[in-house]
């Protein structure tokens, strides 16, 4: 229903009703913001980057052929714009995915420690739960940006493997691998963060 609706809105915009572009912005600004906020490190550049992306979307709207979902098409423009910006700043996005062997050892060490650190679970108090949630959010924030981006698109935006692959240009296999490694890394970070504490009920 939304796809058909999108098509109608696009036709109206292309016929000169520029104001209707607001509907598309409101509909997809969350996805664009998620991609930008995950990839652009400088907070002051983010909103401007979102504007630039939507201006590009508007300028190229006539070239959208309805072969894919509009969300995927907009997502791809957002991803490519961010990547170009990062390239300009010589900020290699995927460089932090390739860990050195030492780092790999450190990260896998978390799982071994886990055996000895589990204690009997007890009910959480509200403040403990809030504290725990805060620490989990911090751990998410510390993940390498490609993992965070793919985890966000999968969990928060509820995009499929195929849609994420279309946006990022990665294969579905790579997407699945990044999702798995991202969550595992997160688990290991959490186990390390909460070592010796009773963490989950």
């Amino acid at each position: 229903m939304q796809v058909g609706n999108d098509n109608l809105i696009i036709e109206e915009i292309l016929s000169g009703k520029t104001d209707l572009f607001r509907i598309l912005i409101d509909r997809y600004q969350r996805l664009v913001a998620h991609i930008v906020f995950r990839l652009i490190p400088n907070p002051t550049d983010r909103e401007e980057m979102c504007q630039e992306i939507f201006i590009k979307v508007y300028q190229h709207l006539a070239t959208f052929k309805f072969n894919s979902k509009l969300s995927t098409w907009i997502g791809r423009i957002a991803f490519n714009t961010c990547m170009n910006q990062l390239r300009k700043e010589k900020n290699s996005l995927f460089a932090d995915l390739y860990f050195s062997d030492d780092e790999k050892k450190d990260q896998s060490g978390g799982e071994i420690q886990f055996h000895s650190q589990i204690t009997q679970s007890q009910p959480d108090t509200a403040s403990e739960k809030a504290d725990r949630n805060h620490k989990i959010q911090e751990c998410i924030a510390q993940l390498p940006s490609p993992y965070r981006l793919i985890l966000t698109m999968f969990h928060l935006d509820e995009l499929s493997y195929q849609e994420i692959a279309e946006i990022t240009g990665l294969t579905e296999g790579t997407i699945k691998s990044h999702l798995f490694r991202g969550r595992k890394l997160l688990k290991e970070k959490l186990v390390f963060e909460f070592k010796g504490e009773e963490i989950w009920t």
Partner: protein
Amino acid sequence: MDLNHLSDEQIQKYLDHAESENRSEIENHLRKCSFCTHTLQIYKEIYHQLDNDSIPDLSKNFSRTLVAKITAQQDKKTFFWENIIFFFLLLVSAVGTSYLINPMPLLRTIIKPLLDFYNSTMGQVQVQLNGGLMIIAGGIIILILYELLYNKLLKYRS
């Protein structure tokens, strides 16, 4: 499976509902193994946090401001081309009127310098820059200056 703990991959696939064949086997294992149950709980919490992760929103008037910006840019482009067309029509009507009143001097003014332009050297071109060409060159300069001024005005308006 009963002897070994579940791998991270098996637990994640179980939570993703991607492990349809071994599902009951995994559930049997989880009933018996407190370690794997605990790992499952950690992953459940991670999934919950990721599903409810908070990313700051864009400013409230984001779409309104952006559409206003796009419309202003469009108006500016339209305005520029309207000016070009207006100037062109003005030139055509001026030339047309001159031609109807007294065609020969005009023809001499426009065609002769053009013919001379092709036949002469660059030094001679400067000499030939008389009435008709000066009008065109002047018009283009005025348009460029007007566009620059309009840009400055728009900058302050937005």
